[in-house]
């Protein structure tokens, strides 16, 4: 019996291989080999094939640990990721709750679509659109000055808050989406049972709704935190001179300073941080699945 199933499994692979090979070959050439190559090159003094002599070195990693600049920037990026994620929870979770539990039928479908519609449209363009709103003499400035009796100057452009606003705007739909999916799955009768047994709204929220929707919160947090830590375009456009983060330093190594091995080492350190975060989040996510 066992032998039979083993042969069945092997013949399954033989039939599956022609269908699978092209897709996975492509992923290997364009994703998995590049990631491995990046790790490899991060231990070199120069890129091979560049004509210059090269040797193995730990220097690129030593640079990270010996110069406090890189560590400071990594911490700044992690803090940015944390702040953006928190804002996305604060803004996105109530919206997901209203979508899942208050709205019904067609209006729910339509509004749900409206919320997630921007998140597939161009992220760069959406970041740029904030420049129109936040700059001095922009819409926010003009509108507030038209309403308020006294003169104020709103010039948030090129500041840390501008980066936060832009990133929250980009990523909050993720949080709404993942929380909506778990909140929708909560049986309404559980909530009613809690209420009829005398629990207050707040108790129902704390004891039933939030614990049951935890997987959605964690999934959303991971989906937001990871790309924000690696962001570079958003701080560049909205942060100006204050927008130097870990991601922008990596970008510089590749497009401005041309120190690719150092860039590879910095990228790999970021990848390691990201993998640790995903590993920490994965038990909660697996429980959800």
């Amino acid at each position, binding site marked *: 019996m066992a032998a039979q199933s083993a042969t069945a499994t092997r013949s399954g*692979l033989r*039939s599956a291989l022609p269908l699978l090979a092209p897709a996975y070959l492509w992923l290997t050439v364009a*994703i998995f080999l590049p990631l491995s190559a990046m790790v490899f090159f991060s231990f070199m003094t120069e890129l091979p094939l560049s004509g210059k002599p090269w040797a193995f070195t730990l220097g690129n990693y030593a640079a990270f640990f010996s110069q406090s600049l890189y560590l400071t920037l990594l911490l700044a990026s992690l803090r940015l990721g944390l702040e953006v994620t928190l804002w996305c929870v604060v803004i996105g979770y109530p919206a997901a709750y*209203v979508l899942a539990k208050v709205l019904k039928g067609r209006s729910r479908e339509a*509004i749900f679509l*409206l*919320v997630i519609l921007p998140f597939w449209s161009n992220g760069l*363009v959406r970041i740029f659109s904030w420049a129109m709103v936040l700059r001095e003499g922009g819409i926010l400035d003009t509108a507030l000055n038209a309403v308020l009796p006294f003169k104020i100057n709103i010039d948030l452009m090129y500041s840390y808050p501008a980066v936060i606003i832009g990133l929250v705007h980009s990523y909050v739909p993720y949080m709404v989406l993942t929380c909506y999916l778990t909140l929708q799955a909560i049986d309404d009768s559980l909530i009613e049972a809690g209420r009829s047994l005398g629990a207050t709204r707040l108790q129902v929220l704390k004891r039933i709704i939030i614990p049951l929707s935890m997987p959605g919160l964690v999934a959303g947090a991971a989906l937001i935190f*990871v790309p924000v830590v*690696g962001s570079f375009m958003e701080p560049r456009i909205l942060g100006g001179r204050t927008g130097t983060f870990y991601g922008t330093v990596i970008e510089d190594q590749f497009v401005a300073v041309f120190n690719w091995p150092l860039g590879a080492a910095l990228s790999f350190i970021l990848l390691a941080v990201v993998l640790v975060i995903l590993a920490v989040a994965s038990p909660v996510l697996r429980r959800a699945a």
Partner: protein
Amino acid sequence: MMTTRVLEWLGRLYIWLLLAFLYLPIVIMALMSFNVSPFYQLPFEWTTEWYASLWQNDQLISATWNSIEIAVITTLICTVLGSAASLALYRYDFRGKKVLQALLFPPIAIPWLITGTAMLIFFFGVGIGRGLFAILLGHVALALPYVIVVVSARLQTFAPELEEAARSLGANQWQVTSRVTLPWIMPGVIAGGLFAFAVSFDQFVVSYFLSTPGQTTLPVEIYAAIRKGFTPEINAVSTIIIVVSMALMLLTARFFKFGGEK
């Protein structure tokens, strides 16, 4: 009862505030692309000159064509390779299947900054170099996992007995696939294709690292323009992009209800 109604009303109000937050900057950007003042000065005066001047901008036009070409080719390759892989993962059981499925997530989960720089290093190292071909290689790899996930979700709703019935009625493997399975998963394939188009057409980070001055895509060109300084022309081209991507997404939603039902 009273408080419930008040809370529900507040909830609705809150959703509309969120929608305002999500759409306001985009609407303002679009409005500014029709404003006369090149410095975004108010009062608002209507013009279409910024759209007209886009036609004079050869660099932007060639980048736009590159973007469209790459997105179309990416879509074609991804739907074919992705559907084939999803079918294999659905139909056959073999050792290591779980691993193959798990391998679809790193390309989605790893920040594009890391993937993009890794591709740059590797393509440069093996002699592929930068340019449109490298960008295409990258885009297909980024979009493939999405297509496989979407088509696989659709396959979950497929009854395998249908294939067996067709086979027992004398259909060969090709006939079973083309007449029974493919028509059923078509909405998933189309939705996957539209996702692939969107991933490629909107992709900035990976294209940015893989492009060269002559061989570039629209988002990379826009980024370069933004860093030189804002002009209403950027608003105009950005507005076009937003409208195109949102239309595509609405089209996708018609073919593929989120959650895989339908």
